C-alpha cells in the first residue's frame, strides 16, 4: 500500500478516535459530582439554590445530558471548546497559548531520551562486561526508581541553590533583551533542567531497550556477513546493526508519548513551566470543566499525531512493514 494511502487511513482513524475521546471525557466529567456552579457558589462563600440554578442556566448545565453533549461537539467542530469561567478566556485560545511550551518540553525530552538512551544502549551492548554496561544498569534502576518530582527537586537543589547556574523556574527571563537568538538561548537555559528531569526516566527505558535489541542483533547472521565483507566495526554497529535494533525503541517511544505528557504535568509543576500541565493543575483545582476538557482534547490530539509520526518512522526504518 502506498504511504499516502496508509497516512490517510491513519488520519481517518485518528479523527474517529478523537471524537470517541471527546464523548468519553464529556461523559466522565458529567458523571463526576460537582460542577462549576458549585465551585462559583463556593467562591462566593455560599449561595442559595436560586442563584446556583441561575448560574447553571447561564452555562447551559440545566439542559439534558445529550443536549449538552451535542452543543459541546458542535462547538468543537467550530474550534470552539467553550469558555473558561475561571480564566475568563475562550478555552481554545487559553490552551493554544500554553501548548507550545509543553510541546517544547515534551519533544526535547523525548529527543534527548531517545538519542542518549540509544547511544548508551549501543555502547553497552558492544561491551557487555564493560563499565558502560554497569552504568546503563545503574542509570536504568535509578531512572525507574526515582519519582520525577524528586529528581526535579534534587536538580533544583544542586544547580539552582548550590551551584546557581540555572534559573529556578519559568520559561523566560523578562529582563532579557535582544533578538530572537538571545530569546532562544534564554528559553534553552530555562528548558535545560526540566528537560533533563523529564528525560531521566525515558533515558533509562530506551537505553535498556536499545541494549537488549542491539545484543540480539549483534548475534545475527547478517552482522557476521557485514564483518566478513570487511566492514569496519563502527559501520557494522551504526549502519548494519542499529537500524535493525531501532524498531523496538521507536515503537515504545511512540507508545510512551502519552506517558511523557503526563510526566510533563508533574515536571511543569515542579519547575513552574508555563505549559498545559500547570494549566491542568490550576483548572482541576478550580473545577474549570471546559478547560480540563480542552486540555484533554489537545493532549489526545498530540498523542494521536505522534503515533502517526511513529508509524511513518517505523516504515522508514524497516522496509518489511507493510499494510495499514
Amino acid at each position: 500500500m502506498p504511504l499516502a494511502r496508509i497516512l490517510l487511513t491513519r488520519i481517518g482513524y485518528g479523527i474517529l478516535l478523537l471524537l470517541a475521546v471527546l464523548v468519553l471525557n464529556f461523559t466522565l466529567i458529567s458523571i463526576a459530582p460537582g460542577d462549576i456552579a458549585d465551585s462559583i457558589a463556593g467562591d462566593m462563600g455560599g449561595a442559595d439554590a436560586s442563584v446556583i440554578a441561575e448560574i447553571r442556566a447561564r452555562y447551559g448545565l440545566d439542559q439534558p445530558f445529550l443536549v449538552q453533549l451535542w452543543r459541546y461537539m458542535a462547538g468543537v467542530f467550530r474550534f470552539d471548546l467553550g469558555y473558561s469561567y475561571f480564566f475568563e478566556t475562550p478555552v481554545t485560545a487559553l490552551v493554544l497559548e500554553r501548548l507550545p511550551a509543553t510541546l517544547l518540553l515534551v519533544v526535547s525530552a523525548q529527543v534527548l531520551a531517545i538519542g542518549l538512551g540509544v547511544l548508551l544502549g549501543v555502547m553497552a551492548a558492544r561491551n557487555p562486561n564493560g563499565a558502560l554496561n554497569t552504568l546503563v544498569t545503574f542509570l536504568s534502576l535509578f531512572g525507574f526508581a526515582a519519582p520525577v518530582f524528586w529528581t526535579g527537586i534534587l536538580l533544583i537543589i544542586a544547580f539552582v541553590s548550590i551551584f546557581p547556574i540555572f534559573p529556578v523556574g519559568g520559561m523566560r527571563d523578562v529582563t532579557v533583551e535582544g533578538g530572537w537568538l538571545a530569546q532562544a538561548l534564554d528559553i534553552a537555559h530555562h528548558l535545560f533542567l526540566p528537560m533533563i528531569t523529564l528525560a531521566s526516566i525515558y533515558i533509562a527505558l530506551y537505553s535498556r531497550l536499545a541494549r537488549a535489541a542491539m545484543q540480539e542483533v549483534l548475534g545475527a547472521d547478517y552482522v557476521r556477513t557485514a564483518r566478513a565483507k570487511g566492514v569496519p566495526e563502527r559501520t557494522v554497529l551504526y549502519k548494519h546493526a542499529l537500524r535493525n535494533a531501532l524498531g523496538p525503541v521507536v515503537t515504545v517511544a511512540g507508545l510512551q508519548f502519552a506517558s511523557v505528557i503526563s510526566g510533563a504535568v508533574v515536571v511543569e509543576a515542579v519547575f513552574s513551566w508555563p505549559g498545559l500541565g500547570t494549566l491542568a493543575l490550576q483548572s482541576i483545582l478550580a473545577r474549570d470543566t471546559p478547560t480540563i476538557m480542552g486540555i484533554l482534547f489537545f493532549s489526545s490530539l498530540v498523542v494521536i499525531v505522534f503515533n502517526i509520526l511513529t508509524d511513518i518512522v517505523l516504515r522508514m526504518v524497516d522496509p518489511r512493514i507493510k499494510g495499514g
Partner: protein
Amino acid sequence: MSAPLLDIDGIVVDFSTRAGDARVLDHVSLDVAEGEILGIVGESGCGKSMTALSIMGLVPQPPGRLTSGSIRLAGRELVGLPESELCDIRGKEIGMIFQEPMSSLNPVLTVGEQIAESVRLHEGASPRAAMARAVEMLRAVEIPEADLRAKAYPHQLSGGMRQRVMIAIALACRPRVLIADEPTTALDATVQAQIFDLLQDLQRDMGTAIVLITHDMGAVAELADRVAVMYAGRVVEKGAVGTVLSDPRHPYTRGLIACVPHLEPDPPAVRAPLLEIPGVVPALTDLGRGCAFAPRCGSRIARCDAEKPPLEAMDGGHLTACWVARA
C-alpha cells in the same frame, strides 16, 4: 609445486566454556592452491565452520582465541594482523558465503546496497559506480532483471535468489579465495544443484580458489580437487578427491561415504542397508588422550585409546591419522 595461495599451518583455537576449556581446532593444517577447490567435510561440530572463521579472523573472542599456528595468504601472515588490516582483507582478498541465506542478508538494506558497500569500501568506488558493479554482479550470478532486483529487499527474494546475492557479495571484489560454508544446506535439492553449477562456472571464469565446507559427499566428489575430512577439531584424512573417496583409509571417512544414499535404477533383490556411524561427535571439553573417534570406531585397537594418531602419509598418496590404517 609453487607455494600455496592460502596456507593454514597448525592452527589451534581454544574456547573457554562453563564446562572447561575446549580445543575447537587442534593443529589444523590445510592449503589451497590458486584456482583449486578444497572440500572440507565432517559432521556438525567438528570444526569446519570454525576453520573458516579463523581464516577470516572472525573467531568470536571472548570466548574463543587462536592460540597458535599461522595462516598465510600468498605468503602474508594473517594471524595477529590489526583489525583495520584484516578489514581490508575480508571481502577483498577472501570472500565468504554462509549457510543461512534467509538470515545472512541485512533485512533493512537493499541487496544492491549490500553488494555495492563492499565495492565502495575496498575499491573506493563512487556510489554510482559501485551500484553499477552490484547490478553487474547480480547478472553474473544469473539473477533475472538484475537492475530491478538491485533495488529489492532480501525479504522480497526466494532462498535460492538470496544465496545468489550472497555469492555476488562475496565475489564483488574478485577475491582470490572464496570460503563457502555449507552454501546449499538450507536450499531445495534442485536449487542446490544450480548453486553448485554457478559456483563452478564462476570459479572457472574468475580463477578463484574455493574452500567448500559441506557435509554433502556428492558435492565434494563432483566439485572438489582435494578434500580434507575433519573430526572433533582435527583433520583426520586429506588428499586428492579421487584417492580419498575411492580408497578411504580412516574409518570415519569410510563411515561418511557409507552414509551417502545411492540412487540405483535397478535395485538389487537384497538392498545393502544404508549405514550410519554409531554414536555422536564427543564434547570437545572431555576428549581423552587417545583418538577422538575411537569410541565410535568399529576397528579400534588398544593403542587408539592411549595415544592420538598423527596425520601421516599413506601409500595411497594421501594423509590419514589412524593407527589401524598405519598398521
